[in-house]
């Protein structure tokens, strides 16, 4: 299966290191998956803005991205919970023929039409239209095959590292939209962390929100930070060395909020960055020095030279 | 059809235990509905052979309703499920032969739902009046 990268808005403009890490992990030096770029991909669009205020606009904008993947016959790889949830929900909305028709009316203005990818039914002349498949980076990495490849490509095992995994809401909920993991007991990121050699710690309210979503961060940053503080307390109680998340927006929140309530910050990295570290990527390319909370204590504990510029 | 308004002919197959009783209750409660419908009593909606429905259209019915007990309420355990399966087949069949599938309806009407029976007939008559006589649709 061929994949198409979908980086969204937060990664390119705030954490380009994540983009590097994802490309490196999935690319020829890493897991050797067939991933390409679709340059016309724009914003997913952000559920907290568009899905919240006008579903028709949200759906047409999301369908535009889906049309691009449909033309390319590729599965979309999202690296952000927001993009994942927004695009996946859009495919579900579009499975309703009436909704699809209305959306296509809008799309006709830009010469596009969403149908899903035509496929022949095996052993017959009938064809079906398969919805464009929207995948989360974590879901792609977490297969028996890739996990095996991953375990064989560890160059810097993360011994003695205590990782606090934060899944983020739209990775888990609402369950019927995002069922790629057990919503009450998710394991996939923990599994990845363990394969990298680190310890994934249990902490109270692990599945709680980072505080940023749904426009809360943009609207009342103090409220968002107060929620992050709750989570941070539970994490620091367990003496975590690093917070790992599969979502750049949660990462952004943890990374920027910490200074509002603590001096002893805990570094935050994207799961792809942690994988890249363990798999032996060039540390200077992971953009770790761009994070607000310094990642140096983590790197020191892993036993690699600190990066600074 | 020039001198008078089009009056659709509607056949309703009603199961004895729920829908026929529902129609009776509509009467007892004096819920009024248009006289275009003819009820044919069967013991169970599962008794309705798809060929009955096709035959009805062949003989000039403008609409056909099959009414049975609500899911899990069938007097004969699962006859209504079988009716539902046949209705699915009928819907696609009617589409194939160029009859608007909305001329055929499967409805669950309980013995306590007199009002639902009346409103179902009313709605069906209105819808078919919009569609016109059988054969006027262009699919």
């Amino acid at each position, binding site marked *: 299966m061929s994949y198409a990268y979908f980086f969204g*808005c*937060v990664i*390119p*403009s*705030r954490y*380009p*290191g994540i*983009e*590097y890490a994802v490309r490196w992990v999935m690319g020829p030096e890493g897991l050797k998956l067939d991933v390409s*770029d679709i*340059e*016309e*991909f*724009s*914003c997913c669009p*952000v*559920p*907290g*803005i*568009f*899905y*919240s*205020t*006008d*579903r*028709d*606009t949200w759906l*047409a*904008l999301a369908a*535009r991205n889906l049309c691009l993947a449909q033309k390319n016959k590729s599965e979309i790889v999202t690296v952000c919970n927001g993009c994942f949830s927004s695009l996946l929900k859009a495919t579900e909305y579009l499975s309703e023929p009436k909704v699809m028709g209305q959306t296509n009316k*809008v*799309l006709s*203005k*830009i010469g*596009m039409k969403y149908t899903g990818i035509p496929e022949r039914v095996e052993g017959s002349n009938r064809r079906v239209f398969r919805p464009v498949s929207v995948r989360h980076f974590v879901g792609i990495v977490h297969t028996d095959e890739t996990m095996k490849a991953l375990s064989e490509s560890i160059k810097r095992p993360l011994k003695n590292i205590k990782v606090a995994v934060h899944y983020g*809401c*739209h990775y888990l*909920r*609402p*369950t019927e939209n995002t069922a790629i993991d057990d*919503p*009450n007991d998710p394991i996939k990121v923990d599994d990845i962390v363990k394969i990298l050699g680190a310890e994934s710690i249990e902490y109270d309210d692990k*599945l*709680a*929100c980072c*505080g940023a*979503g*749904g*426009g*809360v961060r*943009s*609207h*009342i940053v103090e*409220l*968002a930070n107060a*929620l992050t503080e*709750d989570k941070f307390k539970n994490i620091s109680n367990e003496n975590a060395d690093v917070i790992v998340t599969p979502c750049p927006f949660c990462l952004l929140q943890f990374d920027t909020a910490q200074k509002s309530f603590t001096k002893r910050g805990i570094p935050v990295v994207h799961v792809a960055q942690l994988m890249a570290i363990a798999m032996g990527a060039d540390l200077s*390319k992971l*953009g770790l020095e*761009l994070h607000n909370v310094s990642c140096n204590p983590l790197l020191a504990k892993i036993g690699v030279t600190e990066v600074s510029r | 059809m020039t001198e008078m308004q089009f009056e659709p002919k509607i056949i309703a197959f009603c199961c004895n235990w729920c829908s026929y009783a529902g129609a009776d209750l509509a009467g007892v409660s004096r819920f009024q509905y248009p006289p275009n419908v003819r009820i044919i009593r069967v013991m169970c909606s599962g008794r309705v052979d798809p060929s009955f429905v096709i035959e009805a259209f062949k003989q000039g019915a403008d609409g056909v309703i099959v009414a049975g007990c609500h899911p899990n309420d069938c007097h004969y355990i699962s006859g209504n499920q079988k009716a539902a399966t046949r209705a699915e087949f009928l819907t696609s069949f009617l589409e194939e032969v160029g009859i608007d599938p909305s001329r055929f309806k499967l409805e669950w009407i309980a013995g306590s739902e007199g009002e639902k029976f009346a409103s179902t007939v009313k709605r069906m008559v209105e819808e078919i009046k919009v569609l016109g006589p059988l054969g006027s649709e262009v699919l």
Partner: protein
Amino acid sequence: MGEVEKVFISGLREKLIEDKVITEQDLVPEFASEIIRYGGKDVMTCLQCGNCTGVCPISLKIEYKTRTTIKYCQFGMKSHTLSTRWVCATCYRCYEHCPADLNPAELMIALRHIAVREGIVPPFVKTAASNLLRYGLTVKPDEAMLKEREQLGLPQAAITKPGWERVKKDINTIIETTKYDRLLGITNKEEGE
């Protein structure tokens, strides 16, 4: 609009209960059906058990209470309810725990739809939406970060390539077609242009 921004934290309860008795004039009876139209379909099914409030991270922090909001919606207290619309983090925990299988998060989203149509648009929504019109992304591209990309050896960003003009044009066309720009009162012109 300015007032609305204050109300959500200063406490809805006090305002409602201490200031006055609610009378029929304060209620909008068709509020529930309006919410249902915008996707908050189960609003009337709520049995007021309070589980949603208990699991809501926001309810722990401020006077906003998920359950009470649903009650307000059922009751028709439109203006009071619209003032709390942007505090929901859409974490969907309320939905996961609701024994009546309601989706309060979607209800909040329906409230946002209604608020926007009443002209209550928070500034950050306008900014993000105009960014999309102007740059094709909701987060305004950052010159410094574009430089960082070069440092990291990443491929040239698509937004700096000539093909991006077409993307922006398509996005503008979509938003004009759905009249979203008029709904929010935004344009693709840079400020001061």
